[in-house]
């Protein structure tokens, strides 16, 4: 009993501590592909440390929402790892609190609070960032729901652990068109939701700002919390992509300490593989215009529809 509780804590800690490393790896690889030196894979940790040592400056127009938003976002990102297979392939205590849709709900709650905080201070950039983020969410959400529906139809269950077991046990399902289309649809979503090209929402150029626009008023430790939360969101989405859909192997089966450590190492290896694919996309793709954002998402929507068709016919 104690061991499974420790494992559950280890899952949350793994997401908390390894999330900046994933961000660092992707950014460093990108720099190397572009033949630059790069700051090293540990730069996000140094950035966070620097931000935590600064003082908090609040805008005069801000209300209590401005304070609460980073805390809620950070807590939401620490709640989701309880629900999904990060290190072990069996459910741990409190894993049955919510299914895939529940996890999606908590992830969205974090984004919702940040949107509110962007509107709260009343600055022009915060408002424009929030409105754009909501537009992007409106475009991405139908696809996300369709992917979840597709997963549910594939595994006849909404629990990520069941999907993981099914894909490991039956190679025929793994290689079925329905599953491959789901992987492709989710990959597009992954690019959109983690601020990668073709929609790179965290640039510092005013015309393009989405993510940056929402959190422009923040400074110091609160900004660090927001940055950390967004890295954790990226880590969580990568975990769902790898451990539930793409690479369901190499998770701890018995739940020993060695197994959990090995699973964490394997996780970073899998993430590096996916990260390489993301780097290829980021290097070859150019930014889309604002009014063409719907194109990759429409393609992803289509892939999800095809996946659902595939599940109906297998």
């Amino acid at each position, binding site marked *: 009993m104690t061991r499974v509780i420790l494992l559950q804590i280890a899952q949350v800690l793994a997401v908390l501590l390894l999330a900046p490393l994933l961000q660092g790896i992707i950014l460093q690889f990108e720099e190397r592909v572009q033949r630059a030196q790069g700051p090293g894979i540990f730069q996000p940790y140094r950035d966070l440390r620097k931000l935590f040592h600064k003082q908090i400056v609040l805008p005069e127009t801000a209300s209590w929402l401005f304070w609460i938003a980073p805390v809620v976002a950070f807590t939401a990102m620490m709640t989701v790892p309880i629900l999904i297979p990060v290190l072990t392939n069996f459910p741990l205590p409190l894993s049955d609190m919510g299914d895939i849709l529940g996890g999606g709900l908590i992830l969205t709650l974090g984004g919702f609070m940040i949107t509110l905080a962007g509107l709260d201070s009343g600055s022009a950039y915060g408002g424009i960032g929030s409105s754009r983020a909501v537009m992007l969410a409106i475009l991405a959400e139908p696809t996300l729901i369709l992917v979840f529906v597709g997963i549910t139809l594939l595994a006849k269950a909404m629990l990520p652990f069941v999907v993981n077991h099914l894909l490991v046990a039956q190679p025929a399902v793994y290689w*079925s*068109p329905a599953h491959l289309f789901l992987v492709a649809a989710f990959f597009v979503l992954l690019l959109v939701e983690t601020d990668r090209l073709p929609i790179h929402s965290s640039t510092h150029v005013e015309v393009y700002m989405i993510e940056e626009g929402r959190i422009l008023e923040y400074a110091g430790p609160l900004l660090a919390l927001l940055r950390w939360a967004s890295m954790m969101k990226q880590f969580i989405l990568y975990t769902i992509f790898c451990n539930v859909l793409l690479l369901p192997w190499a998770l701890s089966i018995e739940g020993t300490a060695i197994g959990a450590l090995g699973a964490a190492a394997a996780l970073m290896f899998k993430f590096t593989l996916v990260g390489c694919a993301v780097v290829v996309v980021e290097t070859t793709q150019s930014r889309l215009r604002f009014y*063409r954002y719907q194109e990759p998402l*429409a393609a992803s929507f*289509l892939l999800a529809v095809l996946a659902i*068709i595939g599940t109906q016919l297998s």
Partner: protein
Amino acid sequence: MLVAHLSPLAASLFSLIAIASLLLAFVMLGSRWLRHYLYAFALESWLIAALSAAVGYYGQYPELYLIAILTAVFRGCLLPYLLLRIVRRLNVARELHVVVQASSSLVIGAFAVVFALVVATHIGDTLGLGGTVVVLALTVMLSMKLIGFLMLTVRHEAISQILGLLVLENGIFLGSQILVPGMPLLLEIVILFDLLIIVACFGLLVQYLISHVGTTSSLKLRRLVG
């Protein structure tokens, strides 16, 4: 009927090829560069040739190998080459005036696929073949036809229109390969030559359009000229 008694491996191979060609039809629907249409069409034809060969292998129809080779040569090489020559001569690289944006047409296409699925499921249930690869073949066939119609409707470049026609025809051919694989060889060859003639006629028509109207967009054809 061959498809009702397939081994699971063959069924999954057929469904993979069918869905991949449907995906290529969507690539054609979603891209705006004429050259990409052509490549997608060529690839789709190669997939259909592979499907013919696979059906011939699993169903013991030796003549289907010949059809596979003919499909690959005619639809996969000759037709794209002829169209590529027309595109080069035209100096038209992309659709300039789209009626429906690429992303919207993708979503409309997705709804067309859902409609095709409903119809195909209904037909499959009526025939007592629900849940087999028959339904998939019918779905892919119907949705490729609908996508072909969609391309004919929303695109205005002459080349896109001929490609829409060819996608439509590819869909019918794909469906017939899976559903009635024993179709006489002569019919298939006649269809292939028909296609060749269609493309040749279209080449002439495009030449005529350029010399008399000065454009290749059907949007400009607003009045009848005697």
